[in-house]
């Protein structure tokens, strides 16, 4: 009669009932939501931060009125004022800074200076730069004496968004989006990395706890060491799965609430309109409104994203994720268990952790590269090699992976994880009963070859 279920139950319940588990489980989605809300709030706040800027040109008024005021920026064009005179007093006069435009600007781009006490925000610089660039462009074009230049300029001002279509073997066309695929690759790879790592190292801590508190000797007089190890690994896997599912539901819940209250569709368009207003000049704004009357480009893009998101191979992604999580976690958790058994305390783990963490971190790095270039041979090999394949393969799947590669990777994964669990169990069995011995790789190699 196996006692593994009893062990699994204890490992699971003691962790799930911990305060830290409950707090983390609730806090994580809140933090994730905060990651999205805080930048939005910051952006809204920025608009209230009003700045007045003095514009001084050297003996000319070439650019008078070129830089338009926005909701939170006012440009005051001063005539007959020297920069040096204002340099010391501009703050008292209520200016955020002085923008000095030298007539050289048409030929040298460095002829503009913004003098301020603080580092100016990037948005301000961009606004000034693009306004000036556009105007200089216009002025230069004017020298060619083209008729109806203004009208032509309006017409040439275009926005481009490339739509990607994937053609299947039978010729059917699907809307895809590289953006969505990249996002999925990123999320899949990162989540795999995090889950394997977090719960793998929990296994290690659990083993160390049992070893240092000497509980292990009593337990292995009742059950086989390998049963204790597997019970712990499975129990913690269930904890991970529980937490993951709660997160999925909580996150879904929070976003639903957010969508229906804070970020109502009207508000969204309002925000975007405000932003358009603040950035575009009046004429351009008119143009934009005309355009949106016919086809809202944002809306079209959104719809395209949406359909391409739906077109992702969700079933394949989810099933592969579960497969790679289970096997990848088992593989790494057994390694972590072996390490935990070999040391007397957590500080000693470092020398052993490095060789184990390198492949998984390498996997994450390759996965990030995969997002840029899914077809690279590095990605191909790393998605087959079992130590890196869980993370890398998750990053490759959204871009499409031939089934034989997926199959080969999975077979290799299973073979390796069985071998690793077997080896880890042998090390674990000896390691948990060894105290006060400085463990080393040679030592662990010896344990591997001890008989029962």
């Amino acid at each position: 009669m196996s006692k593994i279920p009893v062990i699994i139950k204890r490992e699971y319940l003691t962790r799930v009932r911990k305060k830290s588990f409950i707090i983390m489980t609730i806090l994580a989605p809140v933090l994730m939501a905060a990651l999205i809300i805080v930048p939005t709030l910051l952006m809204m706040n920025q608009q209230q931060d009003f700045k007045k800027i003095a514009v001084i040109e050297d003996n000319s008024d070439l650019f008078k009125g070129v830089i338009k005021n926005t909701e939170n920026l006012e440009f005051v064009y001063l005539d007959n004022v020297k920069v040096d005179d204002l340099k010391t007093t501009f703050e008292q006069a209520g200016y955020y800074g002085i923008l000095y435009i030298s007539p050289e600007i048409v030929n040298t781009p460095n002829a503009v200076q913004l003098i301020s006490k603080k580092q100016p925000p990037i948005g301000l610089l961009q606004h000034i730069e693009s306004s000036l660039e556009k105007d200089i462009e216009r002025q230069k074009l004017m020298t060619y004496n083209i008729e109806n230049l203004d009208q032509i300029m309006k017409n040439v001002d275009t926005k481009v968004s490339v739509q990607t279509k994937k053609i299947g073997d039978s010729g059917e066309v699907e809307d895809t989006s590289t953006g969505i695929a990249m996002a999925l690759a990123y999320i899949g790879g990162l989540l795999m990395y995090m889950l394997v790592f977090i719960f793998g190292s929990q296994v290690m801590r659990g083993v160390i706890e049992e070893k240092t508190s000497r509980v292990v000797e009593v337990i292995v007089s009742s059950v086989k060491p390998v049963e204790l190890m597997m019970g712990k690994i499975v129990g913690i896997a269930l904890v991970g799965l529980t937490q993951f599912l709660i997160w999925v539901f909580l996150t879904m819940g929070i976003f639903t609430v957010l969508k229906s209250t804070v970020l109502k569709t009207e508000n969204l368009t309002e925000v975007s309109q405000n932003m358009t207003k603040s950035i575009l000049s009046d004429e351009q704004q008119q143009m934009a409104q005309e355009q949106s009357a016919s086809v809202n480009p944002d809306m079209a893009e959104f719809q395209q994203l949406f359909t391409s998101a739906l077109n992702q191979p969700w079933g394949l992604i989810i099933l592969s994720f579960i497969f790679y999580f289970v096997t990848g976690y088992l593989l790494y958790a057994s390694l972590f268990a072996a390490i935990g058994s070999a040391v007397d305390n957590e500080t000693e783990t470092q020398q052993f952790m490095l060789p184990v963490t390198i492949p998984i971190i390498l996997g994450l790095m390759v996965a990030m590269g995969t997002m840029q270039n899914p077809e690279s041979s590095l990605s191909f090999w790393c998605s087959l090699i079992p130590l890196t394949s869980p993370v890398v393969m998750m990053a490759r799947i959204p871009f499409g992976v031939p089934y034989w590669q997926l199959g080969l990777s999975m077979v290799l994964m299973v073979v390796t994880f069985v071998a690793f669990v077997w080896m880890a169990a042998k090390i674990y069995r000896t390691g948990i009963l060894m105290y006060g011995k400085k463990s080393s790789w040679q030592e662990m190699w010896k344990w591997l070859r001890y008989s029962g």
Partner: protein
Amino acid sequence: MALFEAKNVTKKFGTQVALDNVSISVPEKCIFGLLGPNGAGKTTLIRIINQITGPDSGELFLNGRKLNPEDVVSIGYLPEERGLYKKMKVGEQALYFAQLKGLSKAEAMRRLKYWFRKLEIVDWWGKKVEELSKGMQQKVQFVTTVLHEPKLLIFDEPFTGFDPVNANLIKNEILFLREKGATIIFSTHNMESVEELCDNITLINKAKTILEGNVYDIRKQWAASEYDIVFEGEISFPENERFNIINREEENGKSSIRLKAKGNADTNEILQLAIGLGKVISFNPALPSMNEIFIRVVESRN
């Protein structure tokens, strides 16, 4: 009949020999002392009996049958290094260990209630282990060791960490368990408790058995030629061919003398000599303590 037997057990760790052809035989309902200096191989032997590790060669028998993995439920083990999950509650923990030994939850609960009441630790049920003192933790661990009523109990230094009152309580529980039919393997460095409790012993040194047998027989064997005699009044001893005086004390008008017989003088001869010297109050062949025997045997081997 022997309840437990180990025959010619050898265990090596790499090149280091932990047990070299060691055999023990533990009669039923016996308290069996497994003795030896630190690092002699006791813990390895105990782990082999518990099937935590396997021997390289040799055989183990429980109740005349070869020891098999199911036998863990017939063995209770209290290791020298006690260990409980610190963050876990006492009651839950006791239940967990009981279930690992194959008891159903309901049965474990029933027996735990009995033992917790008996050792007066009912109040601790809902407490975390880390809140208990070391002695209290030992009590809990003792309960988890005996709860599944194993036929063979292995206690490694069971009295360390207990105050005299609780040590006595535990000693009585061990005797009570033997009374109820349990056989006990008892490993300790406390030789007084060996004299007090053990029927048989095996002394292991450097992986080998160097002394074994019944405690009384061993002491008698080592005692062969020493006697404690108490006389009334002061006694003067002439130089003598039969014995040497090892020690003498005079107190309250009595003389206590330990003497060692020379050659092959037997008890009767010595007693006759003593009677000739004065008024004898008591005469005892002096049994060396297990402590002395332990030290002498181990040192002679080193």
